[in-house]
């Protein structure tokens, strides 16, 4: 029997999610922050796929499919906003975006 321990898959997903979260919290480049969000979404997808294989259900795949679609939409809108902000402030660093701080 070929088998992967379920806990190992979940720990891998948790580690990926943590790396993405640390990336969002520590990096100030908005492009890298968006990429870290993508990593977090992928970690959740891995959890869904692992659980749906464990239970033999297809519903997890459908949910992961929806997450991929929403992530693509998020990336498109997010990058358009990065472009618009760069036109205004000539920077991609979130520390320098303080229009509301006056």
């Amino acid at each position, binding site marked *: 029997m070929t088998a992967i321990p379920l806990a190992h898959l979940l720990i891998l997903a948790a580690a990926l999610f943590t790396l993405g979260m*640390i990336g969002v919290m520590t990096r100030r480049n908005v492009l890298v922050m968006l990429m870290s969000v993508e990593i977090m979404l992928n970690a959740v997808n891995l959890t869904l796929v692992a659980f749906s294989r464990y239970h033999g259900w297809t519903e997890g795949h459908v949910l992961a499919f929806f997450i991929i679609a929403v992530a693509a939409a998020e990336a498109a809108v997010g990058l358009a906003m990065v472009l618009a902000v760069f036109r205004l402030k000539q920077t991609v660093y979130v520390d320098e975006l303080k229009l509301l701080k006056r």
Partner: protein
Amino acid sequence: MSMELILFYVLGGGALAFAAAMLLPNVGRNPIHSALSLVGTLFCLAGLYALLSAHLLSALQIIVYAGAVMVLFTFVIMLLNLQPDEIQPVRLTTLKVAAGIIGLFVFGKLITAITLAAGGAQSVDLTPHSAAIGGATWEGGFNGYGTIREVGRMLYTTFLVPFELVSVLLLVAAVGAVVLAKRSLHYIDAPTPPPAKLNRLANKPEAAATHDDHGHH
């Protein structure tokens, strides 16, 4: 140790290594290097999906993420065309160290929860016949788990309404991205249209800069 287990550790370790490389200060300083690391992570995850019999998702991961989203990322990075002096080094501040500690704390909590819930002998059986779903069985007893046929059948029956809603969401996102990227945001800072001095992507009005300095007392 079976072949699948070795593949799992290689792919999982690769995904983790690429994701960690993305965050390293010297690699992640240039966004294009971060994007390349992210492509590595996404390919490793596509391999893991294939290992877990999620054939359709594995293909979608490569087509949508590595194909569409990453092209969008690299395209924007190249469009911004950041000069070397504009790329700031990654500084380690107290706040960032605290953020890292919080991240590690959350990771520890997740590990505790996982070992409590699934720390026993539960394992994902990878033999082709183990996945039990309803519907027709294919030749040789394989029941089509994770294939386009099975996932598509579920998408167009049980999850038809969410599927259509996601298609509307993608349309809205595409239109929104075009509108956002097209329109100039100058009116926030300067009510009058800025002078036509092209500065790479757009012109940054001098009026905006002085106005900005003015408000920082």
